[in-house]
């Protein structure tokens, strides 16, 4: 007699498909997932506690270490919050440079997502192609700020340096090349039968549930909600750029793939516009000196659209140049809540696809 029995297994924290140190307790009935319980915190470094003892200016490097796949966005979210708290204006040219860097980093982040997500599902070659182009973006960042992963590229009220000579041409060349390469990715995956079978109707979550679970970013846009803070609450110079919000109403893993692929092209379009419109002369820093004097006992929340969703920073000032409280609202943390309802009732093999489609970075969620 065969007998079925529910079984509890641990996936992670060192499973290669969990993109870091996510541990997932799964209760399985055969190959079906009955229940799951994500365990996070393996990368908790106490950045919020540390920030309370540092000056505003010294917290920027921490923000690199949270979402290390898209460190520029972390920098921009934090610095935008400090600038909002202190009422500091950013010069136009600096804002353009920031947007160029952030959008390039969004492409790099999506490329890493594409490569690892496809690799988890079983497509090897796209991983190598994606990393080839990501390498070019990292080279551009290295030429600008000297770092390839933890950039710390911006300062409060501006950027420290202009684009180096020849950088614009390099960047334009890359964007032109990337448009061709993007077509290659689409050729490999978009109509691929295996890819469709592994992603269609996997990890379904509609708009209502996404919003109820505080899920934002491409996951929400793939559920048919055109929520993008770059349009809804424009910061930096996004109101001067012409771009669309890619939306799909498939609500599944494939729809998220379509949305992220389209977002990469929109980012390319944005960087091209920035390079064209950026003023050639002008100040790079809006403020002299390093002392911040925020108003006493005020609090602000500032959010940007990161590659994974709403990336917010909440600051409370006590009138000194250190924050009384510095809370990072990271999109990976909020989006991970959607994992348990998405995997419930599905197959174990789809858990890997769903972790990939949520595009989580554990450093981002654990802080």
């Amino acid at each position, binding site marked *: 007699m065969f007998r079925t029995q529910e079984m509890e297994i641990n996936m992670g924290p060192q499973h290669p498909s969990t993109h870091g140190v996510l541990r997932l307790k799964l209760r399985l009935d055969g190959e079906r997932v009955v229940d799951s319980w994500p365990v996070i915190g393996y990368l908790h470094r106490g950045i919020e506690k540390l920030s309370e003892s540092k000056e505003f200016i010294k917290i920027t490097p921490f923000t690199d270490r949270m979402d290390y796949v898209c460190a520029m966005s972390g920098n921009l979210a934090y610095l935008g919050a400090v600038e909002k708290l202190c009422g500091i204006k950013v010069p136009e040219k600096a804002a353009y440079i920031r947007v160029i860097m952030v959008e390039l980093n969004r492409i790099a982040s999506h490329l890493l997502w594409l490569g690892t997500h496809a690799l988890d599902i079983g497509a090897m070659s796209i991983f190598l192609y994606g990393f080839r182009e990501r390498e070019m973006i990292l080279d551009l960042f290295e030429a600008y700020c000297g770092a390839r992963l933890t950039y710390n590229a911006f300062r409060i009220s501006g950027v420290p340096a202009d684009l180096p000579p020849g950088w614009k041409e390099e960047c334009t060349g890359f964007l032109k090349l990337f448009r061709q390469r993007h077509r290659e990715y689409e050729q490999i995956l978009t109509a691929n039968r295996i890819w469709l079978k592994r992603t269609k109707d996997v990890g379904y979550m509609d708009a209502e549930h996404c*919003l109820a679970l505080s899920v934002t970013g491409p996951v929400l846009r793939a559920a048919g909600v055109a*929520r993008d803070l770059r349009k809804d*609450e424009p910061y930096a110079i996004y109101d001067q750029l012409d771009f669309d919000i890619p939306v799909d109403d498939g609500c599944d893993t494939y729809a998220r793939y379509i949305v992220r692929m389209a977002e990469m092209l929109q980012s390319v379009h944005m960087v091209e516009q920035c390079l064209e419109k950026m003023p050639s002369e002008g100040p790079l820093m809006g403020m002299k000196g390093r002392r911040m004097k925020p108003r006493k006992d005020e*609090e602000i929340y500032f959010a940007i659209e990161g590659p994974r969703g709403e990336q917010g920073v909440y600051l409370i000032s006590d009138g000194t140049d250190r924050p009384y409280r510095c809370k990072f609202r990271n999109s990976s943390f909020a989006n991970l809540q959607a994992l348990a309802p998405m995997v419930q009732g599905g197959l174990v093999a789809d858990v890997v696809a769903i972790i990939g489609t949520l595009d989580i970075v554990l450093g981002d969620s654990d802080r």
Partner: protein
Amino acid sequence: MPTDDTKPPAGTPPPRETPPPAPKPPVKPPDPLLAVVSCPAPDRLREVLPGRVSEPHFFAGEVTLTVAPDHLLEVCQFLRHDPACSFELLADLTGTDFPDEEKRFRVVYHLASLRNGQRLRLRTQVGQEESLPSVTPVWPGANWFEREAFDLLGIQFDGHPRLVRILMPDDWVGHPLRKDYPLPGYPEHHLRYRTADITRRSYVDISWKATGERAADIVKKYKGNVGAPESAPHVPMPVDDTNGQETGS
């Protein structure tokens, strides 16, 4: 003989000095950070649920309302479902420790409305021995945010489905984001995990820099509580100083 024309003839009264105009206080332009922004939520709340929330506070284009914990759930239900407010998204929920205040924790709810393009901050105060109603019935996404606030600050939420630690280990003692929790942590907790045994490197050395105590003293001080560290003496890792070259003949 030249006469001094400028000198007034004797007998005439000295010209009355006109008092200088009083210095006007310099007119400061209003601080753009304190500008009032339009938001329908405070007015709607005043109409429908009078007296539940405070007057709105405006700063940097953001609206803050303070609410008492007793009315929190009612106000949240209203803000979520009222068509003029319609805050579908709980963007963030977090707490802050103010140890000098009577009610120690300040909890904020950052709400966002996609339909109306509005944001709102709800704020409430809760004491160390009190608890807040959980807003998971209104926004199920509050689940992890409330777990985080419980984990790092020790705020209790009534009605939460499973209020357990999320970022710190399950058997951790204390709540690290409280202001009275020291930044290097408590050395006895480091010893409890016996990191020294595992990594052959002592975390006590880090806290020694912060507290000024020698690692050996700390070990002695806490020896009674956590077992004898002498049983696992510090053994330096064997250093390979041959630099990769073959030794011997």
